[in-house]
């Protein structure tokens, strides 16, 4: 566990600067728009646009970071050390995944705190629409947990694509891109193939989980989990495969 924490610490230290920079940019952007709104130069709707900018940028940044955290190991020649250390491949991969999760959490927290601090009228207006603060907190946490799972699957696919690209001599970028597409397709097919085995699972009532009836009566949203279970198993298999390939077959000179 101590080795895992050391790996995590190393990755977090590497991401400290970019995350700090992005957080700073976000706060400065929010502050400028707030000042413009205070001087009545810009309408309240401008706050919506400025909140949307980092929210749209965030997934792109995290996708890039998924590549970058592994790429930096080759660029800075630290991959030698990683492979020599007596740590399993999944320690390395999950440490990087956890780092991405922490980056996401920090940047999301900055956006939320910035919104609450700089755009209070917008928040007050939004609170009139939703049933209550407990409803927002509950659904916010559920959405956050859901987004962590979605992010994890993206990171795992990217890690496999990168590691496979390091196992070939040429056209590594194209191989990475193609592996990304193929692995996504393969996991999707696995979900379809295994779907009959999980039909006994009941549908997940999302409207109850998110208490949608408090927002609008008569809304029913159900999630059929049967086709998803196979895909989730596939994603876990991809993580195991990536860790194994990284540990045993990756080309350090690639």
């Amino acid at each position: 566990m101590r080795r895992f924490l050391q790996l995590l610490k190393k990755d977090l230290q590497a991401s400290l600067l970019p995350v700090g920079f992005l957080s700073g940019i976000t706060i400065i952007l929010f502050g400028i728009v707030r000042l413009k709104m205070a001087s009545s130069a810009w309408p309240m709707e401008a706050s919506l646009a400025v909140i949307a900018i980092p929210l749209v940028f965030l997934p792109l940044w995290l996708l890039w970071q998924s590549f970058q955290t592994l790429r930096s190991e080759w660029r800075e020649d630290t991959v030698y050390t990683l492979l020599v250390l007596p740590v399993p491949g999944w320690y390395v991969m999950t440490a990087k995944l956890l780092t991405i999760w922490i980056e996401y959490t920090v940047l999301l927290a900055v956006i939320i705190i910035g919104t609450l601090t700089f755009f209070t009228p917008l928040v007050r207006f939004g609170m009139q629409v939703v049933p209550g603060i407990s409803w927002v907190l509950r659904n916010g946490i559920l959405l956050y947990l859901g987004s962590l799972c979605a992010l994890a699957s993206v990171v795992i696919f990217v890690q496999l694509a990168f590691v496979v690209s390091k196992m070939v001599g040429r056209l590594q970028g194209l191989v990475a891109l193609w592996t990304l597409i193929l692995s996504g397709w393969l996991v999707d097919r696995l979900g379809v193939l295994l779907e009959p085995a999980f039909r006994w699972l009941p549908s997940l009532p999302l409207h109850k989980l998110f208490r949608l009836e408090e927002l609008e009566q008569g809304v029913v949203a159900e999630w059929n989990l049967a086709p998803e279970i196979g895909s989730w198993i596939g994603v876990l298999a991809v993580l195991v495969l990536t860790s194994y390939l990284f540990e045993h077959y990756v080309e350090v000179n690639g």
Partner: protein
Amino acid sequence: MKIRRITLAVLLLLTVLFVADIRYFGGPNSTKQPSVHFNVSPGIKAPAVEKSQSFVNSGEELSSLVLKGQRGNVELRSTDTDQIVVHATIGADSEEILDTFEVVETIWGSEIRYEISKGQEDEMPEVWLSFVVEVPAGMEVSVEQNFGQVRVHNFRGFLSLNTSFSEVTVWGLEGTASIQSNFGVLDLRKIAGPITLNDSFSTSKVEFLTIDGGYDFDIEVVNGVLAGKAPFQMDTQQNNKLVARGQSGDGVHPVVIRSSFGNVTVNLKDFEGTRVD
């Protein structure tokens, strides 16, 4: 070098499978049905004030009944008498609004029609109109309903339903049915006869009784889910389209179902075959 070759070989094999999947099976979108299903049927608030009107007509001269309800309930059943009995209830938020509306009966040839009168103002205020109706067996009945419930029990004749944002229950039908539903929930049971169902963004369950002549199933579901226990073969086509064809008995009575973004379940009572999902 060996691992490079193996990696390339595996990638090549997967690429062949991927291309074959796209070429011959239509790719990932062709067979994977949406796993999250939304259904919106807004809650109906109760009116503050109501008034009722009743109409009784002989069914000897009339063969067709049209009901136009809104935001309320429609209850319909067949009887062995030759009388058409209609109890209509109008609801509104205030007495002022209620006084400006009434149920209008119109007879045109062999058709009798019930609907709410047009208001004085350009903008229609919130008005509820519910019906409880008894008709002679064999009659043609057409119901239009938005935002509410339609309940049909032991109906014999020709039934036409056109509903939006409504919950439709038909328990017992001997005759022909033509149903159009948008954003609704349909529960059709003990159906004995040909049926045409068009739905979008709806959840539809249809249970047929075994009848002489049997059924000819012709079902198409686009961007939705089709399941059931009935003698049809399901085929997946491109663009998220599920097509099911099949017959029971001699296939005399057509069952035509067209659904988009819906969840359709079709069962034939006492069918011994396997369930289709």
